[in-house]
């Protein structure tokens, strides 16, 4: 029984990972791609690890997969944040269909103040 539930979790995780990769290919610019990559891959991989934990139980591998879940949830958003900020600072443009870019507006104001 517990094996079947574990396998269901692993299949859900695999499906979300596939969606994340699809998003990585289909979406137009760095920022949207990062969104797909962080969200889907985080929950997808967590789901796979949780399924593994259900199947192997409280053994060495099971405990390690639980710890990996915690570290993944803590670090994936930080990495996405760092990449997005770095990309924006390096001058990567948003997709031309984008509606608003408050960050660029504020940064331009800052730069002009510094020149004055």
């Amino acid at each position: 029984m517990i094996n079947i539930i574990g396998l269901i979790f692993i299949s859900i995780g695999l499906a979300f990972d596939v969606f994340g990769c699809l998003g990585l290919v289909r979406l137009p610019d760095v920022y949207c791609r990062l969104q797909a990559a962080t969200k889907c891959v985080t929950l997808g991989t967590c789901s796979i690890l949780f399924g593994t934990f259900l199947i192997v139980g409280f053994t060495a591998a099971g405990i390690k997969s639980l710890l990996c879940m915690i570290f993944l949830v803590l670090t994936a958003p930080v990495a996405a944040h760092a990449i997005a900020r770095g990309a924006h600072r390096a001058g990567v443009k948003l997709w031309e269909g984008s509606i608003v870019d408050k960050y660029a507006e504020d940064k331009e104001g800052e730069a002009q103040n510094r020149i004055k």
Partner: protein
Amino acid sequence: MKSRISMFFVAFIVWCLFNWVPDWQHLVIGGFVSAFVAFMVGDLFITRPHVLMHPSRYWYFFVYYLPMFLWECFKANLDVAYRVLHPRLPIYPGIVKVRTKLTTDTALTFLANSITLTPGTMSVDIDKDNGVLYIHWIDVKTKDVESATRIIVDRFEKVLKKIFD
């Protein structure tokens, strides 16, 4: 000193979990390693150790924040899957600005992480002095600062204020 001691226990528990099932050799080595780690970086990670002593904070964390976070995370995944699988790709991206009343580092970190893992939003930059976050939103509903704050930040801010401030 308090922060070093709590850092020692956190490091020791993580070490024990990584070496499951622990025997006495692992415990001795783990004690030395955790002491070294706590001595080197203890005051960097836990700057306000008295926060760790309040049981009500743990209660709010596990009972209010964690279920809400997991549910939002699940919704975010369905949202991304819908946008990616839709043939016309329904996205209206943009970077908006929101305000936050949180001030401590831990609370801001958790707020930014929660925003990144909730539907359609991702934090790009934080301006700690002015209490401003820049958020990349895949489906911009409003350009106004106040209403964007109400939609994105408010539900987490209330809980996080009780936990970390």
